[in-house]
């Protein structure tokens, strides 16, 4: 206990304040010494006040937390959860945030500040404005940053005209202030997306001034991630349609001009001569990239299965000869090979599905490739070189998703619960960027393909931009991933704190249940296998219906967070080392994606 006694010295100021809670702590854990109980109470009190310095101190005080994990795991988990939540919030806000990142910051805050989240127990949320009080108490941010946070939490005055003082306006304000950030964002995003939807469905205008308005209208800053993707797609379509229409004669224009954008694009696609293998002019490719497939261009169910099967073997063939690809191949060679499916991916280019251990590639992305290159499913499937070219095109995103598969495999082998977090994406994006950089340098066909496709496919453009960002500064890459791409995903610290909070709160509640209710739960609840397969949000919502041993197992896993953080650090170090090695072997210098 010497070490403990020494560390307690730093808490003398808090001890007195904590004594009121001490009796309760002592009653709950009779084996604790007075000092130990007081120390727990001091931490609890400081963390419940949202003190970020104490949160950081608690997280670093591993000898104490390790001791507490053994002595009272539930208490340890609840404290750790609060400390992680507060520390994560402080880290999030301490980052530099630019004005144009208001939506990203808002989303990131909404993941953390909401009802039922551990930060509520630290006095932050669910009312969003409590964050401003916390900032005033513990942080000295610039006026500019504070202003940005006000916008990010969607404070009433930053959203609505504040010059109205009638009863309705005041009632609206009261109503608004009762909403969480998530609820405010949903309201605003749905308003914005409704407006965008109306344009997409009915508007026929495509001119430059109109495009500028669509790009800059104030309402659209409230679109959510999916809405912003729709806006981008719409703008791409408008620009392509406008450019294509400028080449048309008046009679042809008349047939197109009174149609909404999807129909305009579709009709424009029919005006090109599609006989040229490998794709037509730049304008033709842009139109083809941004329109819907025609009946002969879709992937039938049978062709879909056939192509998926061919890609399953063709993509690994493309990975050979690169460091990142080699790592993926090593993984597959040590177990079952990859399983590939082609499906509509709901706005993503690809995803890894743990339940079926398969990588799903977006069917629209593949059809877009076919359209841009004047291919049909039949002409593609009948030519192995064409399939190989498509495999090369898909390989970067495959590397990305295969990295996620490796992460799941690691967790399975370690027998631990793994939430899906930003750190997973940092690793996957690093691997993908490494692969792309190597291929750009070494493979002229790959370089040529991406050079051609980037003007007509956002997939290709984004792969190149990601590689460039990684190459430019791998040290900043993780922050870029967090703030630019995956702000809608929790950090490990945030996810861990929320799961721990839900699990440990449930375990605490369960102690108070009568024996028959507990027995019933143990008989009918979800078992360990079901619980381990749940996402973090599913686990949080299902905690009350999960058997106690499963909850204890997950609590135990997350209490020992060094297992996770150690892996994330290893992955980060490995990526930087691989980049260094690749540079040494002639891969491009920092910041230089090969000229396209």
């Amino acid at each position, binding site marked *: 206990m010497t070490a403990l006694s020494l560390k307690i010295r730093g808490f003398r100021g808090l001890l007195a304040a904590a004594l009121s809670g001490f009796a309760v702590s002592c009653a709950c854990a009779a084996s604790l010494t007075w000092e130990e109980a007081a120390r727990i109470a001091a931490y609890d009190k400081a963390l419940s006040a949202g003190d970020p310095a104490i949160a950081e101190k608690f997280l670093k005080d591993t000898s104490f937390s390790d001791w507490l994990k053994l002595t009272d795991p539930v208490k340890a988990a609840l404290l750790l959860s609060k400390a992680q939540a507060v520390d994560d919030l402080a880290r999030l806000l301490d980052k530099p945030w630019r004005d144009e990142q208001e939506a990203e910051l808002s989303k990131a805050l909404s993941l953390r500040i909401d009802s039922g989240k551990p930060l509520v127990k630290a006095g932050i949320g669910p009312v969003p404005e409590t964050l401003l009080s916390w900032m005033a108490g513990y942080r000295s941010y610039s006026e500019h940053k504070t202003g940005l946070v006000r916008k990010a939490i969607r404070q009433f005055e930053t959203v609505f005209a504040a010059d109205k003082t009638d009863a309705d306006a005041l009632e609206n304000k009261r109503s608004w202030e009762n909403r969480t950030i998530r609820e405010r964002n949903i309201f605003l995003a749905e308003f914005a997306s409704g407006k965008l939807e109306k344009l997409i469905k009915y508007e026929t205008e495509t001119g430059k001034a109109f495009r500028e308005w669509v790009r800059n209208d104030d309402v659209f800053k409230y679109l959510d991630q999916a809405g912003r993707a729709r806006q981008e797609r719409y703008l791409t379509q408008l620009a392509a349609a406008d450019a294509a229409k400028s080449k048309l004669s008046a009679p042809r224009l008349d047939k197109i001009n009174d149609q909404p954008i*999807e129909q305009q694009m579709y009709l424009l696609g029919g005006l090109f001569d599609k006989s040229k293998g490998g794709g037509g002019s730049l304008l033709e490719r842009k139109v083809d990239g941004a329109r819907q497939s025609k009946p002969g261009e879709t992937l039938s169910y049978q062709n879909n299965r056939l192509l998926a099967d061919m890609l399953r073997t063709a993509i690994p063939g493309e990975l050979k000869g690169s460091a990142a690809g080699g790592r993926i191949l090593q993984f597959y060679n040590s177990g079952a090979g990859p399983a590939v499916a082609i499906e509509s991916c709901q706005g993503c280019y690809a995803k890894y599905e743990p339940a079926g251990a398969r990588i799903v590639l977006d069917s629209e992305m593949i059809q877009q490739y076919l359209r841009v290159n004047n291919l049909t499913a039949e002409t593609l499937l009948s030519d192995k070189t064409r399939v190989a070219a498509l495999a090369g095109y898909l390989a970067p995103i495959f590397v990305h998703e295969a990295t996620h598969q490796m992460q799941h495999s690691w967790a399975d082998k370690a027998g631990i619960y793994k939430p899906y977090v930003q750190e997973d994406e940092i690793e996957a994006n690093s691997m993908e960027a490494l692969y792309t950089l190597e291929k750009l340098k070494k493979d002229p066909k790959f370089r040529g393909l991406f050079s051609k496709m980037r003007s007509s496919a956002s997939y290709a453009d984004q792969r190149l931009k990601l590689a460039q960002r990684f190459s430019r500064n791998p040290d900043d890459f993780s922050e870029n991933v967090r703030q630019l791409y995956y702000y809608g995903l929790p950090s490990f610290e945030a996810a861990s704190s929320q799961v721990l909070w839900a699990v440990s709160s449930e375990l605490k509640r369960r102690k108070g249940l009568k024996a028959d209710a507990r027995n019933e739960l143990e*008989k009918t609840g979800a078992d360990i296998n079901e619980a381990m397969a749940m996402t973090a949000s599913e686990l949080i919502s299902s905690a009350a219906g999960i058997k106690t041993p499963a909850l204890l197992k997950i609590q135990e896993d997350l209490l020992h967070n060094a297992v996770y953080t150690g892996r994330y650090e290893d992955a980060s170090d490995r990526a930087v080392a691989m980049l260094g090695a690749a540079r040494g072997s002639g891969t491009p210098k920092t910041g230089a994606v090969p000229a396209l």
Partner: protein
Amino acid sequence: MKHGILLMTLAAAITALIINAEAQDLSFDGLQAGLARIKSAGAAEPAPAPAPALKTPTAAQSRPAAEREWLVLVFMNGRNELWQNAIKDVNEMELIGSTDKVAVTVELGLSQDRGDSSRLYIRKDTTAEANNLAGKIVSPAVKVSGSDMGNWKHFVDFARWSYRNYPAKKVLAVVWGHGSGRVDIGGADNSGSEFGISPDNLTRNFIRNRQMARALREIEKSIGKKVSVYASDTCLMQMASVAYEIKDGAELIVGSEEITPFNGFPYSAILRDLAANPGMGPGALSAMIVDDFSASYSATGAGTTISAIKTSELPEFVRLLNDWLRAAAVPAHRTNLLNAERETLSFEKGYNGNDTADRTGSKDLYDFVDLAGKKAGRASGLHAKGEVLKNFITGRLVTRNKTTPPGGDYDRAKGLAIYFPKMIYDQSYDETLFSRDSLWDDFLKWKLDRSYKVK
């Protein structure tokens, strides 16, 4: 999807309200007005709602010693403007409650619940307030924190919980809320504007048809038996591609081809009739739901459709449909078919506009086949094959079909809708099991492009 809100999310509906009311005003000023209107309309405003009593139902109070005849589980997604109807429907259920032969459970998600749904065991309301359908919910409930009503796994979790606590010989599973038929995995513009069934406005998630099929499989695996009757108390779900996707997960599928009125299923009538005859089989129960639904709207003048489909007949249906399509998709019939399509009964209240992301674009299959046969002439092979198909639809596949009002256009609705794009084919339709096994996808492509070969 319920009446009046054509395949729109709450916000889209609000936006439409605002935009329509203010003509061409697309300015940002509308936002504040929107906020006021939502409040006055009572939608989406997080306000206190009649709360279920948060008391875990115990074995002693709720479960009989023996397995019951029926478990009725209702996954009620009111995380949108339908929340008041959700409360009303639970109150309707409480007019009857569970019995020793029939257990009724509800997963209740409301727009003002902040993500915490309630899991209820429905008990008969014996208080003086029982007939107040907007009143307090008296059934014991378990709070489910952070629930996602648009997650198929959550539906499975609720079904498992229901069966573990209230086992029964037969299961009626109802999904309550919005529905958009075949539109779920891409939409015509594949841009993330999908809708599916059971969209949750809070989590922005929804259940796709493919996921519903998986959910039903998981439920079967968990409880050791297939769901006897699966019903969608939503709009537009009674489509060929939807039924075919989920056919292996239930014996019968009940749903509507058309938009459903806000009031949805008449739960007190359904539970009353089931309580009176709990020994009825799945076929009888599905027919009874159709009858009670139709009876509840027959006097209102509302245009409604509802039917029950026997899933075991779907493979034979596809065989006969393919047979008909092979005869139909030839140049000689092309003009007749295009004319027939134009005249065929359209759903979404006769929507005849553009193909868009969230339009079902559905028409009645029987009506189309009937019109095509008439145009081809009685002596034609197409007419003969059409008669076989039509007879199969009404005689074996659709076991019960009712429409209101009598004598209206909906008389032509025979219980099964099918996808009909106008110009742009939704490429994600290719990924359905219906496209795998039927020629309907090929037919549609041929319809849109005469050079396309139906294989």
